[in-house]
């Protein structure tokens, strides 16, 4: 390993530690926010999911190195996101009363 590579890894380590502290902080914020009465429970759900998405981005982006991956991996993930979004769309669509087919 060259000195340059070793330097890069050491630089990454400090980034990992920063992400680690951010994840710990995010967890405490998630718990704290769940006790705040925003007036509407849907706001609590949105806040919790927004924090979870941020934490998920940190784990996937930095710990799983997705921010600097090869095109092949991005291709796999784009396909995954497409099908996952389709699954969630079908879920939400099925909850719409107008989507029901009435046979009688």
């Amino acid at each position: 390993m060259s000195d340059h590579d070793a330097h890069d890894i050491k630089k990454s380590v400090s980034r990992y530690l920063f992400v680690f502290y951010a994840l710990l902080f995010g967890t405490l914020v998630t718990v704290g926010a769940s006790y705040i009465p925003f007036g509407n429970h849907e706001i609590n759900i949105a806040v919790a999911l927004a924090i979870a998405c941020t934490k998920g981005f940190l784990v996937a982006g930095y710990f799983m190195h997705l921010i600097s991956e090869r095109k092949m991996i991005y291709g796999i993930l784009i396909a995954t996101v497409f099908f996952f979004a389709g699954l969630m769309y079908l879920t939400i669509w099925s909850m719409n009363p107008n989507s029901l087919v009435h046979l009688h």
Partner: protein
Amino acid sequence: MDIPYVVEPRQDTGLFNAKVGIWLFLASEVMLFGALFSSYILLRVGAEPGTWPHGLLSVPLGTINTLVLICSSITVVMAWASLKLKDFSSFKKYQAITLLCALTFLVIKSFEYNDKFHHYQIDLNNGQIVDGHLKERNKDFVVVHGHYVQPKAAEGAVTAKAEHEEESEIKVATSDIKYMENYGPWHSTYTAIYFTLTGLHALHVIGGALVIAFIWGPGAGMWKTDPERYTNRIEISGLFWHFVDLVWIFLFPVLYLL
């Protein structure tokens, strides 16, 4: 026979094969957990207003488990970085901590499961409902540490307790019991989806920990014979472990807090 592309990247993908393999596997895992999350959404939105339970799970235990998994994620990535820096002893220490974290997570989870299997809802002949943890049970009576709840509260019983009532020892004659059932997966749609989601996740924790333990212990000899391939194995097992952490990041608020 040598297996190709275990270390050197393929020209067309720019990656060694195991990395493509693990990402394809993780893609299928996203769809597996995605299907269960969509089931959760349907069940929750379809529940009668006010009947979806709140406060049934221990937030402190869930928070500790979240922190434990985050700690294990940083030790996994630090273990990989240690190997990149040719520091095998640091790698061993970091992965040992990862395994301890996995064990801690599972022990806490087992305490939570055990708690649910000792937590009973007892419907009495007079229409009242007793909700609490079983202390004693024989053919004549049952003793629980709990409280009375309004029948209409049904699945949301524990929320009602948390806001309005103190817990105490309640002795119920067996002849007064119409029906009693613990909070296992069969109790309600909430406990069913809770046990399904967390049980599947726990299986992933066990599987990931076994793989990490094998590479850390019996499989560590490869570091001497083929260090680059060994480092790649750590990266691949680490990607799976981070995914397990990622799933929990969403499970925790959804099941424990909302």
